[in-house]
């Protein structure tokens, strides 16, 4: 009964969504405001990756919000799980030697790789979020391998806080020296397709990378360790 009713609702909803979507023919050219980004992006930002230009500069405010959302989620989760009497279902001993050895080898490499991704965010696909996630996966690997591994909570908090502050401060620097919040005219824009180019974009993405990395690591740790002895 409930099933059929739900299906009926969903069919109608699907019909509406399809009606809207089908009015935009698939794969055809239709530029809006993003024509500006495409045509003038290089000129204004020098960042080769236009998506990064948009994410960090044109719509950098959204990204600040996005970072905030992630921060919020990590905070809320840490807060809620700090008293959770969840089941303790993971091993209390370390994983096999193979996994441990592999993890130890991969750990620095993964972190390096993550850093590479966000440092090159304005040149190649990827950026702070992707790089940060890669770093978090390194931490996850260690968490899975070693029962006793516990990332330094204070260090994580400090990193994530400072990175967030850095984002805001870069924004304010733009306000003070560049005339508007997050303005990308306080540093030389440099040359297109070079590592040191695109003004504050790489700086912001580095900050985002650190922040996301620290946040997600903290998040995973909090979830994994969210256990109170109930036995």
């Amino acid at each position, binding site marked *: 009964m409930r099933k059929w009713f739900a299906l009926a609702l969903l069919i109608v909803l699907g019909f509406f969504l399809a009606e809207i979507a089908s009015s935009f023919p698939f794969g055809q050219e239709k530029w809006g405001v993003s024509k500006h980004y495409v045509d003038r992006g290089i000129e204004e930002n020098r960042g080769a990756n236009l998506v990064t230009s948009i994410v960090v500069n044109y719509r950098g405010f959204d990204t600040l919000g996005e970072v905030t959302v992630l921060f919020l989620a990590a905070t809320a989760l840490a807060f809620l799980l700090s008293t959770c009497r969840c089941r303790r279902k993971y091993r209390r001993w370390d994983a096999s030697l193979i996994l441990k050895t592999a993890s130890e080898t991969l750990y620095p490499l993964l972190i390096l790789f993550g850093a590479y991704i966000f440092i090159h965010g304005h040149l190649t696909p990827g950026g702070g*979020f992707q790089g940060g996630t890669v770093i978090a996966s390194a931490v996850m690997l260690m968490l899975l391998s070693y029962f006793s591994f516990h990332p330094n909570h204070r260090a994580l908090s400090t990193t994530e806080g400072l990175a967030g502050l850095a984002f805001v401060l870069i924004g304010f620097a733009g306000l003070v020296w560049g005339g508007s919040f997050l303005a990308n005219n306080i540093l030389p824009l440099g040359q297109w397709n070079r590592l040191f180019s695109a003004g504050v974009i790489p700086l912001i993405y580095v900050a985002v990378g650190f922040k996301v990395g620290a946040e997600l690591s903290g998040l995973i740790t909090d979830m994994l360790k*969210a256990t109170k002895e109930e036995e």
Partner: protein
Amino acid sequence: MILEYFMLFLLFLMLALGIYAVETRDLLASVLAAGFISLVASIVYLYLQAPDVAMTEAAIGAGLTTLIFIIAVRKTERYEK
């Protein structure tokens, strides 16, 4: 052309996995299926010329989301009643 058929296959796979994820009583399998959908989606994103999104979806959607789902399932119950 082959690429397009491959994409159609991938889309179909996603839907099939989606139905599986919703209908299976094993939550862990469901979670893994959802993660797999994200993975497939990231390939589709590559086809749609969105490498940034593909990376993000692979790292966050397929990786991180699945991971936290797995942790959550491990800490609660694996089977739906």
